[in-house]
């Protein structure tokens, strides 16, 4: 994996900038070149698929056709929604010649179905198995995290393959490589309210609150996710949730790429760790405090 196509989508230029920064930083130290798809357009996730089905397929179809024409074979789409739209469109047009013909006609472009799609979990999994193997330090040892997949990283049998849809564990290996302890909790695949972020904020507050509460109950000190929608909901909404009197949450929410980046020795600020609503810089402190405490305990035990 020397080069891989890169589809940032709108999120990674906006609310999900930390994801973009951390993925790029990781790719840099792993020696992987991210080739951004030229002239890409919206993946269709935003409002398109509620408005018009043809449009919701035609938009990502154009991206696929462009990427293919640019000689790319694999596309990394860190945003979970982009990934789902791109891969979902690939599956649909390769299965239905009628739909493919229709899309050819609409876009005037040909997509032959040769692309493969990689989401952020698989990408990081490949890095830690490959170029980053042996290069991660357990800097987060002592930190208890809840691995949160949400819907887009766990569901859709043709989109998320090789994963147990009900009890996914694709992040575990990377988190453990970073030294973090993955807690057993209930809400790993539950909805954060993502789709209603703007239209029905109350629902989002309820859902996110339940999720945060369960993570706290399970003893998690941080939540780790791969999806920018989940991230923004959980990170950004905690203050509002607290203001509404639903709870008093103070839970850092990190991207998987940030956690692995920390373990790989990247500067927190290079990954945007300082840009979070809930202070995320503290995870290193929590971890080192825990490590010190453990060392002291071990010392006492020895005596």
């Amino acid at each position, binding site marked *: 994996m020397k080069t891989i196509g890169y589809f940032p989508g709108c999120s990674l230029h906006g609310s999900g900038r930390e994801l973009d920064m951390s993925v790029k930083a990781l790719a840099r130290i792993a020696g992987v070149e991210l080739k951004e798809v030229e002239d890409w357009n919206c993946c269709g996730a935003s409002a398109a698929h509620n408005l*018009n089905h*043809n449009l919701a397929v*035609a938009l990502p179809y154009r991206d696929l056709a462009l990427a293919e024409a640019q000689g790319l074979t694999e596309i990394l789409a860190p945003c979970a929604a982009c990934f789902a739209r791109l891969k979902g469109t690939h599956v649909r047009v390769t299965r239905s010649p*009628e739909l493919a013909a*229709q899309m050819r006609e609409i876009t005037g472009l040909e997509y032959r179905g040769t692309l493969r799609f990689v989401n952020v979990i698989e990408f990081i999994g490949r890095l830690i198995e490959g170029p980053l193997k042996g290069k991660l330090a357990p800097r987060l040892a002592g930190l208890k995290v809840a691995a949160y997949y949400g819907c887009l990283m766990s569901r859709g049998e043709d989109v998320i393959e090789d994963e147990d849809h009900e009890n996914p564990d694709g992040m575990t290996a990377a988190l453990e490589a970073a030294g973090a302890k993955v807690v057993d909790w209930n809400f790993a695949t539950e909805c954060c309210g993502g789709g209603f972020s703007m239209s029905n904020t109350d629902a989002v507050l309820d859902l996110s609150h339940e999720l945060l509460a369960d993570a706290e109950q399970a003893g998690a000190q941080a939540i780790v996710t791969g999806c920018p929608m989940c991230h923004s909901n959980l990170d950004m909404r905690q203050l509002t949730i607290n203001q509404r009197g639903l709870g008093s949450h103070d839970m850092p929410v990190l991207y998987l790429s940030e956690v692995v980046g920390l373990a790989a020795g990247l500067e927190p600020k290079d990954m945007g760790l300082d840009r979070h609503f809930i202070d995320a810089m503290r995870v290193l402190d929590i971890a080192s405090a825990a490590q010190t405490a453990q060392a002291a305990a071990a010392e006492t035990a020895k005596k």
Partner: protein
Amino acid sequence: MLKQQFARRFLSICAAGLRTRRADWDRTGLMAETETKKVEATPAVFEPKIVAFVCNWCTYAGADLAGTSRLQYAPNVRIVKLPCTGRIDPLFILKAFEGGADAVLVSGCHPGDCHYTSGNYHARRRWAIFRRLLEFTGIDMRRVFFSWVSAAEGAKFADLINRITADVRAAGPFERTNPARRRLWK
């Protein structure tokens, strides 16, 4: 350029989509219509002779059902009843063609329904190979028909016979081009 083109199409699709509200693929008119090919019957008086080899339990019974349902079909087929399609030897087909049949039909139980559990599976494999051989040695595949007809498919049987008869009538007598035809003594 591409973008312009794309935008134009995009707008038209949007419009189409909005018109039909819930974008219904078929109704946007973008799906290619599948044209049904019409076979025109020749007005000639040629009455094809068709020999059918059928199994006792499904197709023969299906033909019985066509009868009890009084479904009308072409009188050009002569049935040879066997217990099972598994019993049908390729020699039967050769013999029928040798004797001047314009077409041959082989029909039995659907996969999984064989009265003898797997006779039709054996037959299916046999025909997959034998028909290639017939085709390659010059027998027009418009002369050999295979069909699964169950005991409940009286209507399918009647339709099948009508279709075959019409097709073979259109194709004309096999006499001239039939490589298996007996010619010496007739």
